[in-house]
């Protein structure tokens, strides 16, 4: 091998050159997380100036609680969008999982313990999505239609189950563990311990990666950039823990959401399966010719979407301590899909990150929360939420068009 080409590859190792290349990438349509950061700053400035409680520690903890269910379901949507499919049934699928779990938990009837009822609820949601995935892959019906039909049918199932087993249409959850998922908080010290652990692991992995690539003669990101990124993320984490601790503390559910984010990011970026997911979304024909079982990847992704819907449904049920006839309704479906798209996952497949579920949910939930704080009526809230989603989709469409035009 020649040294010459390695020198070429070393070019991005200085900070200045790295930043220049990022700038070129942004100008040619690879926006990364730039729009979302601009959006979040705008939200903080606008709602913070209009309403003094928006930026309070109490509301910050509220946001962490409100975000968790939406972000959890949105992780599944990110995977679905990565393979260029859509799942419009996740909202009511999440409700079915939650209702099944709740029914199994009812004291004495049958009075299952949480560690049996929760997995069954998750399994039901997973299975329902897999069934829809089978129709999509075997019968080649667009997922849009299959899951739209599924959504309607599952909304009926929720209605049937909740009215069958209660006269008022509301079934309460009394299991302490399940209620605790979204209603308990980590002791102050645990917030710090977990954050320190996460930072230590991140630093260890990044430095090992850096040395490993260096040792084998491959290009590395400039150390200054890695340190700045890790430092910024640690600072944000430290501020979040500190600020939450001045109020009720870090919610337990935030830890669960964090675990989901880390695990599914790992699967998407570090495993063979994740690579195949991106390939199926980018060019299914190339994936098929490369010997990838495209139908199996699609089915697995539907299973992930169903599982995460079930998990999100259980989180929502825990927060409300009940399920009801309207569980899974309202704009839950719109919110979770919007979260994934606003976070930067492309509707056209193959582009996006698991973390966009978190960032998007943060935007959509804080807009919602901010408007609630201002006492705006529902009509105005719907209009504004719709406009935010439209803006995000436009950014996606324009940046993909720009990437094609500039050949990136």
């Amino acid at each position, binding site marked *: 091998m020649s040294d010459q*080409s390695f020198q*070429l590859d070393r070019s991005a190792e200085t900070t200045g050159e790295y930043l220049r290349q990022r700038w070129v990438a942004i100008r040619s349509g690879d926006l990364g997380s730039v729009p979302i950061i601009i959006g979040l700053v705008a939200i903080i400035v606008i709602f913070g100036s209009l309403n003094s409680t928006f930026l309070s520690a109490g509301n910050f903890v509220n946001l962490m609680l409100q975000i968790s269910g939406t972000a959890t379901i949105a992780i599944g949507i990110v995977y679905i969008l990565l393979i260029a499919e859509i799942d419009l049934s996740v909202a009511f699928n999440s409700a079915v999982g939650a209702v099944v779990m709740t029914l199994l938990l009812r004291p004495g009837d049958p009075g299952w313990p949480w560690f049996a009822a929760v997995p069954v609820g998750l399994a039901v949601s997973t299975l329902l999505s897999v069934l829809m995935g089978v129709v999509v892959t075997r019968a080649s019906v667009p997922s849009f239609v299959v899951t739209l039909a599924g959504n309607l049918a599952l909304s009926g199932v929720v209605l049937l189950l909740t009215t069958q087993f209660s006269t008022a249409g509301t079934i309460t959850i009394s299991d302490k563990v399940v209620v605790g998922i979204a209603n308990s908080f980590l002791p102050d010290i645990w917030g710090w311990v977990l954050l320190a652990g996460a930072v230590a692991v991140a630093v260890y992995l990044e430095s090992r990666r850096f040395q490993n690539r260096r040792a084998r003669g491959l290009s590395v990101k400039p150390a200054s950039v890695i340190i700045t990124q890790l430092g910024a993320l640690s600072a944000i984490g430290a501020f979040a823990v500190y600020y939450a601790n001045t109020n009720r503390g870090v919610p337990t559910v935030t830890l669960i959401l964090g675990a989901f984010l880390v695990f599914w990011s790992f699967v998407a970026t*570090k495993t063979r399966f994740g690579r195949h997911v991106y390939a199926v979304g980018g*060019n299914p024909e190339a*994936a098929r010719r490369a010997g990838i079982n495209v139908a199996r990847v699609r089915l697995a992704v539907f299973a992930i979407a169903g599982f995460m819907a079930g998990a999100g449904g259980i989180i929502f049920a825990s927060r409300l301590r009940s399920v009801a006839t309207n569980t899974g309704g309202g704009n839950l479906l719109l919110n979770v899909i919007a979260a994934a798209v606003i976070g930067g996952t492309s509707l056209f497949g*193959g582009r996006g990150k698991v973390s966009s579920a978190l960032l998007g949910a943060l935007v959509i939930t804080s807009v919602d929360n901010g408007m609630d704080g201002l006492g705006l009526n529902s009509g105005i809230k719907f209009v504004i939420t719709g406009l935010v989603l439209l803006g995000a989709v436009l950014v996606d469409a324009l940046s993909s068009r720009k990437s094609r035009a500039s050949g990136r």
Partner: protein
Amino acid sequence: MTDTPLLDARGLSKTFGAVRALYQVDFDVLPGEVNALVGDNGAGKSTLIKGLAGIYSFDHGEVSFEGRSVSIHTPRDAAALGIEVVYQDLALADNLDVVANMFLGRERVNGFILDEVGMERSARETLDSLAVTTLQSVRLPVAGLSGGQRQSVAVAKAVMWNSKLVILDEPTAALGVAQTRQVLDLVKRLADRGLGVVLISHNLHDIFEVADRITVLRLGQKVSVFQRKETNQQEVVHAITAGKLVIVPGMAEVDA
């Protein structure tokens, strides 16, 4: 160049319903040789290479590879022998980077985790050995590459798996002058490394530049094989348009 053919196919025939796509075609490729396969549309070029690639089986005929009689029924059989095909549409995933594309479907792993460092190194080594030096980074999504670079990546992908015979389907059809140059140089280097190369092209200019031999198909039959050095474009064009057929379609069949 040795005299034992890398690939030696005899009497290949294939019919699709009433259409005789290939009739009694003999075709061989020597190691280190570029054998150009030419012919008008419908001459049977695609049928021939798809059969060799295992997309479908021939009705009749025998194929030997490296002197041994083989049967190729699936693309996997072809890959196991060391036959790789680079199709015209390249089959690259635009959203993935160069390394990911080169290892697509054959990713290396340590336990569960992708061996990114190992794959990147191997990809670089393969690209460097083919003197593909115009790539700024192997971590760029292929959507950002030029047509010639994409073709180079697709060829490197085919070469990386210890392949012995590389079949290129119209590799220069969509390329500009400079990029065509780049790809033709690459084709020559493949042959210099001792690989057998089958080059399908409509561009006789390109063919006369890199091919050692030129095999002409017409209406599913092999009409001529030329040594490049002993022929000229007129002769090849004549063979393509009016080469002598063993049997004439529509006429009563004569015993071949």
